[in-house]
């Protein structure tokens, strides 16, 4: 380490309290690595906590999120979000009612869909920033993108929150087969990829908008959700799966099944009861059970194990993940019948994960960048509107990926000139306490919002910066240091 590095670090710390000096030793890189990969980076005090219990224990805890106590403050905030617990049927009803009222020029409850989406976004950000179950939050983001649904498409405006909470969250560390089925049954997915309209053309229920076969969901189910684009299926398999999926949709709000099935309904009168050959296996025409068989085949297919393992390795290790690691994860996936907790345990114990070359090598997505900066600075926002606006400007609006392949997490997708400029402007505004929601808070409370203290921020992040970053920080006026830390190459990566 060049001597200048130490001198400047000392300069930075000089003149602060005793505790600051005590923390002047750069953090253990392994501790930083797990905080950055299993979660959205350190909050004040996190590094010390993980150093005390050790990285192994930390990983173990994170793999069993229920064992980690959530703070009462977070629970209280979530409880205030009234629409969070509404079932899909009720959400669909509210959406239709609002649309009708809007068309008639009324506005009485027309804002409910807006409130539903805003509360879903608030809940997502609150948990990502405040929840100590960080791996659970990271995995929610990962699997949401894997099974992406776009909030901008009609009904999905009100359904994405319910989709995340009922179809994604409960299954992130469970069996892949259960996760697959939960997404396949949720109205948000069935609406987004049009399967709710998928109908056997000659069935008794074929009329109106339910005219014929819709291959959209069947195709993405194989290409994106399970086998992968080179998973070895043919157009004939797409058609067979689409036929298997006919009648698989969601209920109209007054149908009784809607209450027990969370909005999912199978309409046998629109189903194709012929026999199908799917991925080389004959599936007898029998109704809803055909889909279960098809999902079993897909979830247990070696191509699926490989596709999921590759994506997990890419998300948690490197943009181009090592072949050996993907192989090992694939084997584990198959040996445990898709037990996601076991696959991840293998990943977090792998030499590839612990290869020092992979430390800080992943370029953060805008979402990861924004969430990690709010965590690191301990910013307590009265509302998330400016954050949602920032994510939009950075090209990654929350629940806003239009294409079914979800947001990418690689450097190629996110590093460009405009992105850098926007990140640095955001870093500067956040560090100076001038984020619009904060300044609105000042007007309400009369108290000025303090700017972020650069020295404390450096400690929170483990005080590990390259010589160039350290020099740039030291040569800048004190009030800019926090902005430079948030804007540093080290903080752009995880």
């Amino acid at each position, binding site marked *: 380490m060049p001597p200048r590095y130490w001198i400047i670090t000392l300069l930075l710390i000089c003149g602060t309290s005793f505790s600051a000096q005590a923390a002047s030793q750069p953090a253990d890189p392994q501790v930083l690595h797990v905080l950055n990969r299993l979660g959205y980076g350190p909050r004040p005090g996190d590094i010390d906590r993980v150093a005390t219990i050790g990285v192994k224990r930390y990983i173990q805890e994170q793999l069993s999120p229920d064992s980690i106590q959530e703070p009462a403050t977070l629970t209280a905030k979530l409880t205030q979000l009234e629409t969070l617990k509404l079932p899909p049927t009720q959400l669909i009803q509210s959406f239709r009612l609002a649309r009708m009222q809007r*068309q008639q*020029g009324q506005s009485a409850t027309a804002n409910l869909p807006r409130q539903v989406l805003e509360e879903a976004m608030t809940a997502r950000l609150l948990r990502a920033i405040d929840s100590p179950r960080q791996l659970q939050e990271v995995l929610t983001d990962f699997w949401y993108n894997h099974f992406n649904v*776009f909030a*901008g*498409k*009609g009904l999905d405006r009100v359904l994405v929150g319910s989709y995340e909470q009922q179809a994604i969250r409960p299954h992130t560390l469970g069996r892949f087969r259960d996760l697959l089925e939960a997404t396949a049954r949720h109205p948000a997915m069935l609406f987004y990829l049009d399967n709710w309209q998928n109908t056997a053309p000659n069935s008794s229920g074929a009329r109106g908008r339910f005219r014929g076969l819709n291959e959209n969901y069947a195709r993405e189910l194989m290409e994106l959700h399970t086998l992968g684009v080179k998973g070895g299926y043919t157009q004939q398999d797409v058609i067979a799966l689409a036929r298997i999926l006919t009648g698989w949709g969601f209920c109209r709000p007054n149908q009784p099944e809607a209450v027990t099935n969370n909005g999912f309904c199978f309409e046998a009168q629109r189903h194709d009861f012929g026999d199908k050959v799917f991925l080389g296996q004959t599936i007898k025409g029998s109704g809803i059970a055909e889909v279960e068989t098809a999902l079993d085949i897909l979830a247990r297919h070696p191509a699926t194990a490989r596709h999921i393992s590759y994506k997990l390795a890419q998300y948690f290790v490197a943009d181009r993940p090592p072949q050996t690691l993907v192989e090992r994860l694939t084997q584990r996936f198959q040996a445990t019948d898709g037990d996601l907790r076991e696959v991840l345990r293998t990943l977090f114990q792998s030499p590839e994960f612990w290869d020092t070359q992979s430390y800080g090598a992943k370029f953060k997505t805008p979402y990861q960048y924004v969430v990690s900066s709010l965590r690191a600075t301990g910013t307590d926002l009265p509302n998330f509107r400016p954050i949602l606006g920032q994510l*939009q*400007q950075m*090209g990654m609006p929350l629940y806003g990926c*239009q*294409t*079914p*392949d979800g947001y990418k997490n690689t*450097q*190629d997708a996110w*590093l*460009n*000139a*405009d*992105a*850098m*400029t926007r990140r*640095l*402007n955001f870093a*500067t*505004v956040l560090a*100076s306490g001038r984020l619009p929601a904060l300044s609105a808070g000042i007007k309400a409370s009369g108290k000025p919002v303090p700017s972020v203290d650069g020295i404390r921020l450096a400690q929170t992040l483990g005080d590990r910066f390259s010589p*160039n*970053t350290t*020099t*740039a*920080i030291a*040569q*800048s*006026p004190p009030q*800019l240091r926090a*902005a*430079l830390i948030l*804007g*540093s*190459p080290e903080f*752009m990566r995880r």
Partner: protein
Amino acid sequence: MHRRQFLQQTTLGATATIVTVGVQGWAYRSPAQTAKPKRLIVVFLRGAVDGLSVVVPYRETAYYEARPRIALPRPGGEGSILPLDKRFGLHPALRSLFPLWQQRSLAFVQACGSPDATRSHFEAQDYMETGTPGIKTTRDGWMNRLMATLPGRSPVRAVNVGSTTPRILSGPMTVASLPTGRNATRLTPLDRSQIRTAFDRLYNGKDTLSQAYQEGQLARQEILKELQADMQMADNGAPGAAGLAGDARRLARLMVRDPQVQLGFLAVGGWDTHVNQGSSKGQLATRLNWLAQGLATLVEELKPIYGETVILVMSEFGRTLRENGNGGTDHGHGNVLWAMGGPIKGGQVYGQWPGLATAQLYEGRDLAITTDFRSVLSPLLQNHLGLDQAQLAQVFPKYGFDQSVKIM
């Protein structure tokens, strides 16, 4: 280091191959062409404008039968359309563009659009912006791919008016953004020299992050020069009529001043007229009037380079022929594409008119599409911007080369 040198050396990993294409482009281009660069501006009307109210088929009785409240009056009466030819007339709110029609630098392509049948705004816009109708997984936009085929390299090759990079400009090539409306002249933290100097020290290397930072700063400095000139102009008492005119003026001046800016994109929202659309007066007329003033301002300000500029106005889909119970129209299919500029063979309504009789309509309710928007764009990109067939295939993959509609 000189600016050009810098630009040549500044390559982000993802775009390295693209630069090679650009270098070849320089070599085969004639000096005359490079001296006066060609420009293309796309104005996107989001929400789907009612094309049958823009270029009105006033000879069709079906038009008047289907729209008792919102049809535009035949030529002659009060608030009547401005006849373009023997079949079509222009909405009276677009009067300020009529001189361009008479000067033959404004043309329309009727019954034009994306062949995909979706009636979802997001999907339809997406398909028009990616240039691959029906394919959901295309992530980059056709204007970004177009940038990759153009010679030279500059962080301000394409300018987007707005704060979010739209799909049409998304992709590996760098795009500069010009903020809109009141935000246009607002300085960002990095515009302050003390803050920029600090970050300059942080990103002074040749690594990918530093290169992205430096390229972003160059683009911003270019934009700022224009904004500062603009702020002074505003003091002289020449602000535009509405936000759009102001945005159009800033974009035009930037393009006039900087020959490197070849592509511009501007989106205008608010065309989703399900309720109370109105006729020669009303909601749609107000918006069209505002749009016409914006476009007229754009043309006026582009004067020095208008001869080398093409402006296209497009929208994701048309609206239903029949008016609905609320005096509005719903999501339809075929629409009208507008083209302006020096190279345009104007004064003509292009495209094959499919008619409005029920049997001639798409799904019995909408104007049918007889011209794929890509078959207007392909010859335009070839003749105006000099793309060869391989480059056209890059911009519009999986689309056969089509020369059917030549608007220039």
